[in-house]
């Protein structure tokens, strides 16, 4: 079963769109949990690009990298949410506007 060439271009489209949406959300949203979700979006965009490259050039290394990225993303989300829980315990809110004490 062969691939048509256009799905490469569509994959690039989706990957870059997801990455830019994730980047914008990361910079503009004020709710810490949604910011973490946008980080996940960025990681998934990179996963899509890695898998597309790996399947296009028929090398398995891309898929192995995706396995590692998924694992690290899972661990990072868990620790990030632990930190968010602590922030909530300290201030009663997770709105990023209220965490300004390190500002100079």
């Amino acid at each position: 079963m062969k691939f048509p060439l256009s799905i490469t271009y569509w994959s690039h489209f989706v990957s870059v769109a997801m990455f830019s949406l994730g980047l914008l959300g990361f910079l503009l949203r004020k709710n810490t949990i949604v910011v973490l979700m946008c980080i996940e979006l960025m990681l998934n965009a990179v996963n899509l690009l890695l898998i597309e490259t790996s399947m296009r050039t028929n090398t398995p290394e891309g898929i192995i990298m995706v396995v590692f990225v998924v694992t690290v993303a899972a661990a990072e989300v868990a620790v990030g949410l632990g930190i968010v829980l602590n922030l909530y315990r300290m201030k009663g809110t997770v709105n990023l506007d209220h965490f300004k004490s390190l500002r100079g």
Partner: protein
Amino acid sequence: MREGLFIAFSLFTIAAASGVVLSRNPVYSAFSLILSFFGLSGLYLLWGTTFMAMIQILIYTGAIVVLFVFVVMLLNLQVNKESSPNFLIVGISGAAVWFFSLIILRVLTQAIPNTLPAIPTDQIRTISKLLFTRYLWPFEVLSLFLLVMIIAIFAITRTQEIPHGGEKQ
């Protein structure tokens, strides 16, 4: 046929991703995240990696987003006016970032052949062999990393009770 499905899943994924960024209620954001992961899984299936599609659903939607939903429900967050971003800013900057990134990506991946290779049949076997022979070192380091993360999570979210009553974090 396959291209049609690919276009449908692509648009679905992008719509769900914008739902994550633009939604006011964090529970709706989590739900849109689930939908976007479904779309991505469909894209992986259309590329021929059934294994990665199932891994995506199993780990991302089945565990990571569950964690997000748990935390959102535990914290019982209120939906207020300041939590949704300015749609115009997001739209314009999103389009600009997308445009420039797509150009950069196209320039960097110029050597695209005219036809793409067929789907390999014993993909899982190849990946597993490589994981345990050539990439054994990162694999083992990753398992140690996960153990350290588990201990770190316990250390971060622990609350200790002091004898006079009340809690110390």
